[in-house]
C-alpha cells in the first residue's frame, strides 16, 4: 500500500442535477498530512464548501473518493469535526448543553458528571469560563463561534474541518479568534482543513494553501507552501516578515487573474492534477529582496501621487 497522507482527496468531482451538467469541480486531488494546517482558497461558487461537505461526509461526490486513514469515507464521523460558518449552535441549549451534547455523542457511556467535566475543560480552553449557563442568543458572534470551536474540539477528532469560520465576525474578533485557533492547533497538533477567502488569514494560519480556480469545472491550480515558520507568524507583525508580501502577492495574483484564466495558462500542457506543483513564493522573495527591495508593494499601499 502506498504511503498516503491522513486525508487524501482522490479524483473528486461533483455535479448537481443529471450527469450531463458541467461539474462544479472535477479531478480534484490533494492530501493533508497529520498535524498539518491546510487552507483552501478560491472564489465563491468554485465548490469550496462542497469539497468540505464531502470531507465531512455530509455530501457525496459524483466521482472519486476521500480516503481518511486509509479508508474511504462514506458518511459523517466523529473523527472529523466540523466548525460551521454560521456556528450552528442549538439555541435551546446552554453553552454547556451544546458541548455536552457533542461529548455525550462521542462517549455515550459516560455519566453526566464526567461529560460535564470534560465539556468544562474545553469551555475553558476557548476562554468562555463563566458563560457555561448562557444561551447562544445571549452571546456575541465571536463567543458563539468559540462555542462552535469548543464543541468541535471536545470530541477530540482526528481532524477539524472549518468552513470560513470567521467570515461573519468583525475584524477585531476575527483576529483574536485566529490567534486562539493558532495557539490551540499548535498545542494539540491538530490536523485542520479550512476554507477561507481571506488571504491574510491563510498566510497566518496555514502550512499549506491549496489554490482553487473558478467554477464551473473548477480545479486545483497548485499548492502554495507557507515557508514562514509557525513560530514567526504573528498577526500584528505578519506584514513585517520578509516572506509575507511575496506569498501575499502570489495569492492575490492568483485570485485576481490566474483563477479566471487558468485553462489558458495550462493550455500548452505540463499540468497534472494528480501531481500538483508545490510553489514556495516566500523563499523566492528572500533571494529577490536582497537584490531588489519590494518597491511595487510600497507603491500599492501609498498609491497617492502629488
Amino acid at each position, binding site marked *: 500500500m502506498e504511503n498516503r497522507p491522513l486525508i487524501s482527496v482522490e479524483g473528486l468531482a461533483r455535479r448537481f442535477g443529471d450527469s450531463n451538467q458541467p461539474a462544479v469541480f472535477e479531478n480534484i486531488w490533494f492530501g493533508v498530512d497529520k498535524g498539518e494546517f491546510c487552507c483552501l482558497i478560491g472564489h465563491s461558487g468554485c465548490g469550496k464548501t462542497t469539497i468540505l461537505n464531502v470531507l465531512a461526509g*455530509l455530501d457525496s461526490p459524483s466521482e472519486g473518493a476521500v480516503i481518511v486513514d486509509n479508508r474511504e469515507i462514506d458518511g459523517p464521523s466523529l473523527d472529523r469535526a466540523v466548525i460551521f460558518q454560521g456556528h450552528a449552535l442549538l439555541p*435551546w441549549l446552554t453553552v454547556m448543553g451544546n458541548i455536552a451534547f457533542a461529548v455525550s455523542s462521542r462517549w455515550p457511556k459516560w455519566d453526566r458528571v464526567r461529560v460535564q467535566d470534560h465539556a468544562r475543560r474545553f469551555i475553558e480552553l476557548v476562554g468562555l469560563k463563566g458563560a457555561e449557563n448562557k444561551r447562544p442568543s445571549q452571546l456575541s458572534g465571536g463567543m458563539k463561534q468559540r462555542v462552535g470551536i469548543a464543541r468541535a474540539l471536545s470530541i477530540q477528532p482526528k481532524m477539524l474541518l472549518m468552513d470560513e469560520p470567521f467570515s461573519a465576525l468583525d475584524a477585531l474578533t476575527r483576529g483574536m479568534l485566529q490567534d486562539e485557533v493558532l495557539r490551540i492547533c499548535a498545542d494539540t497538533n491538530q490536523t485542520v482543513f479550512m476554507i477561507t477567502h481571506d488571504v491574510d488569514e491563510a498566510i497566518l494560519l496555514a502550512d499549506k494553501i491549496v489554490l482553487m480556480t473558478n467554477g464551473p469545472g473548477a480545479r486545483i491550480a497548485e499548492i502554495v507552501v507557507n515557508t514562514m515558520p509557525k513560530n514567526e507568524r504573528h498577526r500584528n507583525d505578519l506584514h513585517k516578515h520578509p516572506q509575507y508580501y511575496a506569498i501575499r502577492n502570489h495569492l492575490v495574483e492568483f485570485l485576481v487573474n490566474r483563477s479566471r484564466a487558468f485553462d489558458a495558462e495550462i493550455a500548452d500542457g505540463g499540468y497534472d492534477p494528480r501531481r500538483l506543483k508545490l510553489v514556495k513564493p516566500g523563499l523566492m522573495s528572500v533571494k529577490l529582496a536582497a537584490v531588489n527591495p519590494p518597491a511595487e508593494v510600497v507603491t500599492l499601499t501609498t498609491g497617492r501621487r502629488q
Partner: protein
Amino acid sequence: MTAFKNSLGLRAGLLSLLIFVAIVAIWQIATLPTAGTGPALDPEYAKLVGNAAATGTKSSMPTPADIGATIWKHVTDPFYIRGSNDKGIGIQLAYSLGRVLLGFGLAALVAVPLGFLIGMSPLVYRALDPFIQILKPVSPLAWMPLALYTIKDSAISSIFVIFICSIWPMLINTAFGVGSVRKEWLNVARTLEVGPFRTAFKVILPAAAPTIMTGMRISVGIAWLVIVAAEMLVGGTGIGYFVWNEWNNLSIANIVTAILLIGLVGLLLDQGLAYLAKLVTYPE
C-alpha cells in the same frame, strides 16, 4: 398625572372599565320596565313568555342586576346535583372540560407522531396530503352522525368529534415545524453520528416545539368552540347542554352566565397553553 399619562396599562384599564359601565348602563336602560299597560297580548304567547313580560311591566330580558344575582348564585354553589337535568354549572363545565381534554389529548397522541412522520418523509407527506386537505375543512359536527352510528355512544361520540377537530392544526403544525428544522442543526447531529431516535428527541423535537405548541393552542381553542355545539346536539351533560336546556327553560340569565363562564374557561385554556409554549420557545 404624568405617571398616569405614561402608564398605558392604567389608561387602557380605565377605558375598559368605562366601556363595561357603558354596556351595563345601556343594558339597564333597555330592560327598564315599561310604564303603563302595553298592547293586549295573545294569551298563548303570554303563557309562553311568562306573566311578568305578558303584563308588560317587565321585559323577559333580565337586568344587569338579575344577571349579577344569577352569576353569584352559580358561583357560590357550582356543584349541586338536583336530578339529572339540574346540575350545578361547575359540574357541567367539568364535563365539557373533561371531554375537551380527553379528545384533545388523544388527538395530540396521534397528531404529533404522525406529524413527525409527515415532516420527515416527503413520501408520507405527499401520500397523506390529499386526505388532510379534504378532511381538514369539514365541520367537526358533520362527523357526529357517523360517530353516533359507529360508536353507538353519545358521550364517546362527542369526544370523537373533539378528537377529529383538534387533530388538524396539531398535525399540520407538527409537520411544518419538523420539516423546517434548520438544516445546519441536523448536520450537527449527523457529524456527531447521533442516531435517528436521539436526533428526533434531542434536536428535531426541541427545534419544532414552539411550532407544535402553536398548533396545540389553535387546537384547544377550536375544541372548546366545538364542544358547546356538540353537547347541544348530544345532550345529557356539559355546558353546551346546559345552555340549550336553559334556552328551553327560557332562563336568559342562566344563558348569559354560561356564555361568560365559557369565555372565561376558554381564556384559561388558551393562557395555559400560551404559558407552556413560552417554556419551550427559544430565542435565536
